[in-house]
């Protein structure tokens, strides 16, 4: 089999249309559609007393105004709980429109449909809502104090409480020669894709069918949700994810209130309706993540070897829990990284607050866990006066210990078992790349020049490719072109390219001949979605398995046509040929024709095909038992459990002795995601992840005041890094193939962002000689920290 395409850094198939402005993003569709806009709560917690739309009714162009009272059927019920969990004892989800009470600023109260968005907003301005404010619960402290409740029937504000323990951690810590207790906190951030959410719905009254375009990470699940919510037979619902302008997690949540309401209104009105989320709406009514507070107690020996680890943390899940408790579960398990913790106990509480809901943002609980674990490693090294890399080294799971069973349950409900990885090798590569052993001298030299330079490093392990399954369909057309379809969506990860590379490699056709369709339920109906770094692992392997079926069938048919043993055949550049026999060959296109007994001579290939005699003879049916017409097949990949990628990052920073500004001098990444389908795309994923890591460590934070008002709901004050803030990333790869899947690959999507907070906290601590226990950190905070530690103020 040719593997020419697999592993090649080819240019992306999707780029020509995107760079030329020919992309089709949600708002590029439905030019004539009515526009929806929403009246959203200005209060964090209030009773909705009255909604008065009278003043809006004379707005020219207004079509409809809806409040909760107008909703019917299952649309009037709370939105679904997507991922129940036994530990989530008090799940609560919102109504599509507020039903009497609003629980966060931005919660939708009324929906307006009008001729265009300008007019819709005019109408929203004129709708007067009377609220009776209720005491808001904002922040982890207030949630724990529980003087007030977000939900009346959850008086302690605790949505979930979970404990996992392997061995007796507390006893092990008590008996350990060395002990530490650390308090570590990460603040709120958000996925913040540059394209917000959006929904465009078309109802065909005659056909009783609904087509919905939505900027989502899972079109197949939105389809199922809409069929159920709207009472439309599922085979009458089509959901298409067009080009999606970034997701990073927030678009995996479904159905969003607007995803239900826009199609609902389109059916009621018999008109096309479109809603395009603006930036303000995205800040206050989509989802946030990261806010967690951790207490780590650790016992270790004089070499820094962990003997017991006891982690308790509090997770702020916002006002509702539609996506369950995936984030804290991931923190509680992935926190362990590449290390053997000795005895391990982890306990978390997930808390309701009157703030925007919390659902996975790229990294999904791992940045918090890695921050807790890696700060702990740094603290151990400091306590023992040992090299930080060395302390990590002694705690590594060794390659020969793979597969390694932690004895815990992972996010997919299956045992946390690492399948592969060579952590010492990863660290060694990183130390070489960044020049770890020389940096101490360089740092000292800088000191003598009055400069503050520091280096930090952080390791992580990332479970990728969670199940339950993905599928793909591969078809060879009679012109030799190959069409690949997967229900899995794409938001810029280059799936059209990498899946084409996989199919081309498996089939032996030029990649130019392969077209890929993603996220369109008209083309493929069963899929889970793009999240948890699972697309390449899940759909990549599904595409490979489907292509292998097609190839086997092609060889069988070609074998009959050429009267040779299929085992002697190979496929090169779309031609099936007999190994070592120059002229004995048949184009895959012709084989595609032969695969269909109904052989009208529509095209040249069909005519050429008539020269071959296949199909057995008159004593067998044209389509034999177990066979199907056409050169096509579906393939499914469903792994026994996740596969685990890993990596090590290092940052070299310089802090200004006067202004406390942080300058990133270098950022190095060593990454192991198994075999690379397209190294260029993997690098791109790492660069983008690192940029979000920089943002999360030094710039991005969502600030609520005590009243539950989000104070920085704009790009003015929520500081996503520009090019001027992001360093050039130096990367190196290690490829330890996963034994769990046919292609030996592991996910790469989230990796870049995971160690960001940990690595910068370590580097800044190193430069400043200060202990940093909460991130992000701003120059002002660093300067204040200096003042606290050195009373005379700035260093």
């Amino acid at each position, binding site marked *: 089999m040719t593997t020419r395409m697999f592993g090649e850094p080819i240019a992306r198939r999707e780029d020509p249309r995107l760079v030329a402005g020919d992309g089709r993003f949600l708002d590029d569709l439905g030019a004539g559609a009515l526009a929806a806009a929403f009246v959203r709560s*200005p*209060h964090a917690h209030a009773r909705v007393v009255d909604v008065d739309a009278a003043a809006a009714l004379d707005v020219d162009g207004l079509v409809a105004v809806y409040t909760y009272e107008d909703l019917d059927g299952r649309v009037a019920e709370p939105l679904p709980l997507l991922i129940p969990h036994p530990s989530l004892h008090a799940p609560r989800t919102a109504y599509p429109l507020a039903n009497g009470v609003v629980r966060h*600023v931005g919660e939708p109260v009324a929906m307006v449909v009008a001729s265009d968005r300008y007019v819709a907003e005019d109408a929203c*301005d*004129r709708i*007067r809502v009377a609220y009776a*404010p209720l005491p808001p619960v904002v922040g982890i402290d207030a949630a724990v104090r529980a003087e007030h409740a977000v939900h009346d029937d959850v008086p302690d504000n605790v949505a979930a409480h979970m404990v996992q323990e392997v061995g007796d951690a507390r006893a092990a810590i008590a008996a350990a020669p060395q002990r530490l207790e650390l308090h570590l906190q990460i603040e709120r951030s958000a996925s913040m894709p540059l394209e917000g959410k959006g929904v465009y719905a078309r109802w065909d009254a005659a056909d009783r069918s609904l087509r919905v375009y939505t900027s989502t990470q899972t079109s197949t699940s939105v389809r199922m949700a809409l069929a159920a919510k709207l009472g439309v037979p599922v085979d009458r619902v089509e959901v298409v994810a067009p080009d999606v302008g970034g997701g990073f997690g927030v678009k995996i949540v479904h159905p969003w209130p607007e995803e239900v309401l826009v199609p609902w209104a389109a059916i009621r009105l018999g008109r096309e309706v479109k809603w395009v989320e603006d930036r*303000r709406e995205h*800040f*206050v009514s989509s989802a946030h993540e990261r806010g967690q507070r951790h207490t780590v107690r650790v016992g270790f020996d004089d070499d820094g070897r962990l003997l017991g680890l006891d982690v308790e943390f509090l997770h702020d899940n916002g006002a509702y829990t539609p996506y369950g408790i995936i984030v804290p579960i991931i923190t509680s398990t992935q926190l362990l990284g590449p290390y053997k913790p000795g005895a391990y106990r982890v306990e978390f509480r997930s808390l309701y607050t009157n703030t925007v809901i919390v659902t996975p943002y790229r990294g999904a609980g791992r940045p918090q866990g890695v921050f807790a674990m890696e700060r702990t490693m740094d603290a151990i090294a400091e306590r023992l006066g040992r090299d930080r890399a060395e302390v990590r080294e002694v705690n590594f799971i060794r390659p020969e210990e793979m597969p390694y069973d932690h004895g815990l349950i992972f996010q997919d409900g299956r045992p946390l078992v690492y399948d592969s990885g060579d952590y010492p090798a990863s660290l060694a590569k990183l130390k070489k790349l960044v020049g770890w052993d020389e940096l101490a001298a360089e740092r000292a030299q800088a000191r003598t020049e009055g400069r503050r330079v520091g280096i930090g490093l952080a390791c992580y392990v990332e479970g990728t490719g969670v199940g339950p399954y993905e599928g793909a369909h591969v078809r060879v057309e009679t012109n030799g072109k190959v069409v690949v379809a997967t229900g899995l969506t794409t938001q810029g990860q280059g799936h059209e390219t990498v899946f084409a590379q996989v199919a081309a490699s498996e089939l032996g056709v030029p990649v130019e001949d392969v077209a890929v369709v993603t996220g369109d339920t008209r083309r493929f109906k069963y899929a889970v979605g793009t999240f948890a770094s699972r697309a390449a692992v899940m759909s990549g392997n599904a595409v490979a398995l489907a292509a292998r079926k097609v190839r086997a069938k092609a060889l069988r048919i070609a074998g009959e046509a050429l009267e040779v043993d299929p085992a002697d055949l190979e496929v090169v550049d779309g031609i099936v040929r007999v190994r070592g026999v120059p002229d004995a060959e048949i184009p895959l296109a012709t084989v595609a024709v032969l695969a269909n007994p109904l052989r009208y001579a529509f095209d040249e290939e069909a005519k050429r095909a008539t020269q071959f005699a296949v199909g057995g003879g008159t004593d067998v049916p044209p389509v034999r038992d177990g066979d199907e017409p056409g050169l096509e097949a579906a393939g499914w990949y469903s792994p026994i459990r996740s596969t685990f990628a890993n990596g090590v990052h290092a940052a070299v920073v310089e802090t200004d002795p006067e202004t406390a500004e942080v300058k990133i001098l270098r950022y190095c990444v060593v990454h192991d995601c198994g075999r690379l389908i397209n190294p260029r795309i993997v690098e791109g994923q790492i660069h983008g992840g690192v940029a979000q890591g920089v943002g999360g460590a030094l710039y991005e934070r969502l600030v609520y*005041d005590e*009243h539950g*008002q*989000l*104070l*920085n*709901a*704009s*790009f*003015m*004050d929520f500081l996503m890094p520009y090019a001027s803030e992001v360093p050039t990333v130096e990367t190196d790869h290690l490829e330890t193939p996963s034994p769990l899947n046919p292609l030996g690959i592991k996910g790469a999507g989230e990796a870049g962002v995971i160690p960001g907070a940990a690595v910068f906290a370590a580097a800044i601590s190193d430069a400043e000689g200060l202990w940093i226990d909460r991130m992000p950190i701003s120059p002002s905070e660093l300067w204040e920290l200096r003042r606290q530690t050195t009373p005379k103020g700035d260093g």
Partner: protein
Amino acid sequence: MRVSGNATLHAPVEKVYAALNDPAVLVRTIPGCERLERVGEDAYKLTVTAGVASVRGTYAGDVRIADQRPPNAFVLKASGAGAPGTVSADVSVQLAAGDDGTTELAYDADAVVGGMIGGVGQRMLVGVATRTADQFFAAVDDVLTGAAPAPEAVPAGAAAAGQPAVFTAPPRAPGLPGGQLAAGVVLGAAAALLGVLVGGWVTRRAARAAARRP
């Protein structure tokens, strides 16, 4: 967010306190106040047009006087709503006799700013509110010292507290109109804050939030 300030008023405490219920004074002294309606004992609805430069908006507000401890303290509960958002402020006001029959007034406001205005940053709010309140007190003290004209007579029928009555502001000379000082000062201070929050501040804050320079 909290806004607090002080002022020395050239009138005795009792007079300051007594004047609180004179809507005719209030409608003249509350910055940008166009219409004021007593809707009950110590409760008023008002329409405030506020803004900075030419960027102005009209907002509906309520002011209620509560927790009265004559003649030294009370709380003003002010709230307002306009398209840009909502504001509510509890302004606790303390009055104490100063030298030579003056009154030392201190106010401390805790305000909640919601809606769009709540989300686009609050860096300037305190500064703007404080500045406006200061201007207000300064102007009112001009009135106290006779630098500004005295108020017109209270419309008949309005004097009976608790009776619904509507008051509209007469055309005003530039600068702050007069009024029975204490009333203007106290309720005016709250309304100034309200006006700033729902009006002037909104536009200021918006301009601050506006991504970039003009």
